[in-house]
């Protein structure tokens, strides 16, 4: 049946044809002679590493960026797309990787702001509920955005686009924050849209997803088209070769006996003041020296609260509920916990993990003050710069040097910088939230390997991630957080994605599903 679908749209006239698109920036050529075409009902992948020019190309289509050369043909007519509003009027919608939502407004207010026409409040709310339910992305229109998790915010962005009934939908790295089940749901949504005749440009570097979802693919490397493919006929390896021009690096988790307990959570409970927050219910967990413990879960199930409690951003009264290297630390502030040897990579990079308008050097100072960057209250710029250079070099951060401001880096590169900074601060315990969100394949492997190296050097590492593949790849033990409760931990070999998926729904007692039991025997 899928085959026939494919034939269907192949006979149609392309809806969007890009020819020879070139966009130069002062220091870099973002796109060079890029051509692609998308037909009605086609899901077309644009594949490439960070900085390969995917986002620039999409911004050209959405009218954010004007190309220096090349033509755009839309529904048979040559067009120049002056701005995003023009693109929306033509029927092009885009879901950005970085959200543009006002945190102090509700979902409905945010969507109202982005609409080009004014719609009565109750009508809009009803539309939002209807569309979001129809496409399996339930959201409450009256909720305030600041209380929503990253995953939930993305739903708002998607629904915002769908309300305008686009004929071409551009999705920029949409699955980075979703659970496997949610990804499946999103794919259903996208397939339904496609079957209704909507064209979809799907930007990603996740090869499995592209092979599962997309009909055709255009691969970009260094701003140029390095190949086109029918993803179903390719393997991950062949796609990766087109994308990075070489073999994919791998990371290895050699079995290792963990040492003493370094991070211990004992009956950690936290009643949140946030009306949309999650209350943590007696969480127990130990992380030992030389092991990586992964926590899976759908965003909005208490990860934010748990991370803030562990980092010290939201200290708790019961000091003994959190022990860092044996010290009761529940009531300590983040600076004191850092002095005990904790480092932490938060979920938000800009504005929390890094100060956007400050240089990378000063962003090293943000958490590195006790590492020789300050003496007698005076900032030592030389050691600060050296540290920043070291992070940039070790973690292959693409930037204009240590004096570039943090906000000028792409999301993936800034993530590399922040993970690198927290790693090189020589932690004894490291907590990492979403280590590779929005980071390309090559860099993800680099970050994962860095975490594994830390573990091998005896650091206790706790990773909270929504990417199950990642957790299975790097964790010694995996737990699931759901509804503010934490499941027991399991070795990856003792469980599987299905069981973790069931646990994610909050049902920890269902035990091991049948197939999993069967799998347990041979291993």
């Amino acid at each position, binding site marked *: 049946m899928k085959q026939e679908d494919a034939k269907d749209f192949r006979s149609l006239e392309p809806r969007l044809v890009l020819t020879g698109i070139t966009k130069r920036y002062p220091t870099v050529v973002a796109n060079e002679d890029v051509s692609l075409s998308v037909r009605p009902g086609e899901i077309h992948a644009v594949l490439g590493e960070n900085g390969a020019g995917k986002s620039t190309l999409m911004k050209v289509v959405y009218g*954010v960026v004007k190309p220096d050369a090349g033509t755009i043909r839309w529904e048979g007519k040559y067009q120049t797309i002056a701005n995003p509003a023009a693109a929306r009027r033509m029927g092009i919608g885009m879901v950005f990787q970085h959200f543009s939502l006002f945190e102090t407004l509700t979902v409905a207010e945010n969507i109202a*702001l982005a609409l080009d026409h004014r719609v009565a409040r109750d009508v809009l709310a009803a539309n939002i509920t209807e569309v979001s339910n129809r496409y399996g992305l339930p959201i409450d229109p009256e909720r305030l955005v600041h209380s929503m998790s990253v995953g939930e915010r993305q739903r708002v962005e998607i629904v915002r686009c769908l309300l305008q009934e686009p004929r071409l939908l551009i999705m920029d790295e949409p699955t980075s924050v979703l659970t496997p089940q949610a990804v499946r749901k999103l794919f259903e949504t996208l397939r339904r849209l496609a079957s209704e005749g909507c064209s979809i440009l799907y930007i990603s570097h996740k090869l499995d997803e592209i092979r599962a979802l997309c009909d055709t693919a255009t691969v970009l490397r260094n701003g140029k088209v390095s190949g086109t493919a029918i993803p179903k006929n390719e393997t991950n390896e062949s796609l990766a070769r087109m994308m990075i021009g070489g073999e994919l690096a791998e990371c290895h988790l050699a079995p290792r006996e963990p040492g003493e307990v370094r991070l211990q959570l004992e009956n950690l409970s936290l009643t949140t003041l946030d009306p949309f927050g999650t209350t943590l219910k007696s969480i127990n967990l130990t992380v030992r020296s030389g092991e990586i413990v992964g926590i899976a879960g759908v965003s909005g199930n208490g990860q934010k609260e748990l991370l803030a409690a562990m980092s010290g951003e939201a200290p708790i009264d019961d000091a003994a509920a959190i022990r860092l290297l044996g010290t009761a630390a529940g009531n300590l502030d983040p600076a004191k916990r850092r002095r005990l040897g904790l480092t932490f990579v*938060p979920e938000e990079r800009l504005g929390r993990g890094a100060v956007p308008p*400050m240089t990378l050097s*000063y962003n090293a*100072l*943000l958490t590195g003050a006790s590492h020789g960057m300050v003496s007698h209250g005076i900032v030592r710029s030389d050691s600060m710069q050296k540290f920043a250079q070291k992070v940039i070099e070790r973690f292959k951060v693409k930037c204009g040097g240590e004096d570039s401001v943090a906000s000028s880096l792409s999301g993936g590169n800034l993530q590399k910088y922040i993970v690198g900074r927290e790693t090189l601060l020589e932690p004894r315990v490291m907590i990492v939230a979403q280590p590779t969100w929005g980071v390309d394949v090559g860099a993800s492997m680099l970050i994962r390997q860095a975490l594994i190296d830390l573990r091998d050097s005896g650091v206790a590492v706790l990773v909270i991630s929504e990417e199950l593949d990642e957790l299975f790849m790097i964790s010694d033990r995996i737990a699931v957080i759901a509804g503010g409760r934490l499941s027991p931990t399991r070795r990856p070999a003792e469980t599987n994605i299905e069981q973790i998926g069931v646990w994610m729904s909050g049902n920890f007692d269902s035990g091991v599903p049948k197939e999993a039991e069967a799998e347990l025997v041979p291993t």
Partner: protein
Amino acid sequence: MRIASPLIAAVAMLITGFLIFTLLGKEPVQAFYVFFVKPIDTSYGFSELLLKATPLILCGLGLAIAYRANVWNIGAEGQLVMGAVAGSGVALAFGESNGAWVLPLMLLAGVVGGILWAAIPAFLRTRFNTNEILTTLMLVYVAQLILSYLVHGPWRDPAGYNFPQSRMFGDAELLPLLIQGTRVSWAFVLALVLAGAAWFFSAKTFAGFRTLVAGLAPAAARYAGFSEKRNIWLALLISGASAGLAGICEVAGPIGQLQPTVSPGYGFAGIIVAWVGRLHPLGIVLAALLMSLLYLGGEAAQMQLSLPSAVTGLFQGLLLFYVLAADLFIGYRLKRTDPVVKQPAPVQAAQEPA
């Protein structure tokens, strides 16, 4: 462009001023000359420029540190008044003792007076989460009433023919003059030195870095473990201290005694100075000179053009208005929403992710 906006604002202010002078029936070129050139075309006039710039620099420097830390101290005027009161209190308490230590003690008391007055909103904010914009502003009026009570009551000069003012300060209680024959004292040099110190604090010290982070990215400050309370205290106390110093330098300088009014709104003008100066010490010194010129020009316009004194405030207000507007339009542009809209839609700032 961020640096250009004060210049754009100054030009826009001049154009508006031109229109206002014309509407008021004054010959605009002549009025401009009287307002902006004549006050400083003599060396005495120029010294007055430095004189009036001094408290503006001092207030602006402290406020800039607070604003960069995202703490909104609007009450430098009150802290200035309390600095003047506390410093004068020392002078009056010791009589005309002529000791060399009296003046330093007065300056110190002025600083402490400003600090104590700023400590009240700091305490209220950190303890009860009270908005410091309101408390600092309200305390301005409290400070002015305290001053008024003192000069009408206990501190009134018995030999002063019942005028509401303290006795004149003696030589040992006055700041030495920088240039003889003018009214400029060493306070101006002190203000320049403190501008250098403020730059050093923000650019080179870790404490300064922490306040910058707290202002630019509060979540990053929390993440790094920089205490929010410490930030609020530090920002308010620094701005209070510098405003208090401005106050004592006025009464121990050009005024020479405690009067019911010790400042023509220097504390409020300091807010404008801080913003027009881009919260940077060098910019603040330049902006203070410009604001000082507006004070002088306003006085000249009263005397020679028979314009009301409100003209000074008018120009100050225009300047701040245009700086804020220039900042906004450098970052954003107006966008017409779809014409089919029946009711006027809210003006949407163009914020497409770039």
